[in-house]
């Protein structure tokens, strides 16, 4: 089976000499939910721009389900839908018209487009706004409108560039649910995001890009398995005057009723509880403080900055 996306030795140097991508290679399998992570300016949006022909590459090759985006651009474009980071629709047009026009650009007859537009506007909770000027929509509604627009030609590969940026938590969760459903129905999804929790929750595989290079390309599970230690927050029943000391478990008294402890992967949490219990400290609840993926992300980007080698 052809990969949903195959990038080979892709490079991009902008006018002025800035090298945004340095010979990156990447493969995304059909049906995957793939995260492309990286700090600002790392090359994520440039990569997406090249995939959907908004950015001209300097070198390399990009194929979508086996169709070269240069040689077979018509077929390749029929297979990909893109949700960009910035709002890029006509703010004076109505959402329904925006969707029908987009379908028209892909050669979809108007009667089919009208039915499909209603379906996606309803699914994304925008049907009651279908006839208002799109400039009057809220930020979250505009993002959903762009998702609906990208789906109008029912692409097999959906690329989303920070789709939940600036969206409130409730709406973000509902968008996640919608994207999971789209993915479950067979659409391959590539997502860039700054919310690492989002990538951890949604995606199966991940590539981390930094300074135009892929510094990691693996599954989320394998990535998380690389974590050596985690920071836990313990809520305790009785307030403490001073921080207890336990060998090999660095503790910090954050508040009289709150402790933080760093636990290495090889260490036993049971043993920690036994010692605390022995000292008369009763733990009411425990939670992981840091976002695990976030921690890894910073580690990898930091390593890249210091020039260590990676796969």
């Amino acid at each position: 089976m052809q990969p949903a996306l195959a990038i080979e030795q892709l490079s991009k140097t902008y006018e002025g000499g800035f090298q945004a991508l340095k010979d990156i290679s990447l493969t995304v399998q059909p049906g995957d939910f793939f995260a492309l992570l990286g700090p600002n300016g790392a090359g994520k949006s440039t990569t997406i721009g090249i995939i959907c022909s908004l950015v001209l590459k300097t070198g390399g090759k990009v194929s979508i389900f086996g169709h070269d985006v240069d040689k077979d651009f018509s077929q390749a474009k029929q297979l990909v839908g893109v949700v960009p980071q910035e709002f890029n629709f006509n703010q004076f047009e109505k959402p329904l018209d925006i969707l029908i026009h987009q379908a028209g650009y892909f050669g979809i007859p108007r009667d089919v487009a009208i039915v499909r537009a209603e379906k996606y506007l309803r699914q994304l909770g925008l049907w009651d706004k279908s006839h208002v000027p799109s400039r009057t929509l809220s930020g979250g509604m505009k993002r959903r409108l762009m998702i609906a627009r990208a789906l109008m030609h029912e692409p097999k590969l959906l690329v989303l560039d920070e789709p939940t940026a600036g969206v409130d938590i409730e709406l973000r969760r509902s968008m996640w649910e919608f994207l999971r459903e789209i993915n479950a129905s067979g659409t391959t999804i590539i997502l860039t995001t700054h919310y690492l929790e989002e990538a951890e929750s949604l995606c199966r595989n991940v590539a981390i890009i930094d300074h135009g290079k892929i510094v990691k390309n693996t599954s989320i599970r394998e990535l998380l398995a690389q974590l050596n230690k985690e920071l836990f927050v313990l809520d305790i029943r009785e307030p403490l005057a001073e921080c207890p000391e336990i060998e090999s478990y660095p503790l910090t008294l954050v508040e009289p009723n709150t402790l933080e402890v760093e636990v290495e992967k090889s260490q036993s949490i049971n043993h920690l509880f036994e010692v605390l219990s022995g000292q008369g400290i009763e733990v009411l609840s425990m939670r992981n403080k840091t976002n695990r993926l976030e921690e890894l992300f910073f580690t990898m980007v930091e390593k890249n900055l210091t020039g260590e080698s990676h796969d």
Partner: protein
Amino acid sequence: MTSQQKWIAFITIVRREIQRFLRIWPQTLLPPVITIVLYFVIFGTLIGSRIGEMSGLPYIQFVAPGLIMMAVITNSYSNVVSSFFGSKFQRNIEELLVSPVPSWIILSGYVVGGMSRGLGVGLIVTILSLYFADFSIHSLPVTIAIVLMTSLMFSLAGLINAVFARNFDDISIIPTFVLTPLIYLGGVFYSIDMLGDFWGGVSQINPILYMVNAFRYGIAGISDINIVWAFTMVSLFCVVLFGVALNLLDRGSRLRS
């Protein structure tokens, strides 16, 4: 894309363009009509009655074809330049760039949209001009052919301007400093026989001179320019501008980074 899909894409662009200028008709249709009516009142009726004849025609009949052509030119041009640049500015041109629509369909869609407005306003102005001047059509094929080619040519020119424009100033510079002088010096208000040899010769490089004269020939049967030569020149301009516009879109010039 199949031929049918390309046709759907083309019709979609044309429909969107027509919807756009109809939606904002107080900005797109009303001002040119008022402007041209004022020209008829001032140059045709008030001043024209004192001028007498020009090239054997009452002045208002001489000036009417030029004024109709002026409406076609400015509206064809300004529709495409403002719509295409607006799409660039709001970035909704990306909707087309990510689609499989070939460049020549995008170009054709915008140009036909511009022609629809140019010809629409031209028709309204023609109907209004009948109130001010009596004229019959000398040659309908010449009249229709030249008005279509003129509208096509300035729609293409508007698109090229929009591709190069970086800001709103850039889309007003050409109409103000190039288009308007060319129209005024293109024989709308006078016969180039009135100019001396030198300025008459200089006028020959003005494409609008050929259009206005060919259109005047179609309506009144008189022209300062050989009609075959006029069609040849206008066709040449259309071909060159089409080639330039298509090349710019194909290369993604100032559209793709």
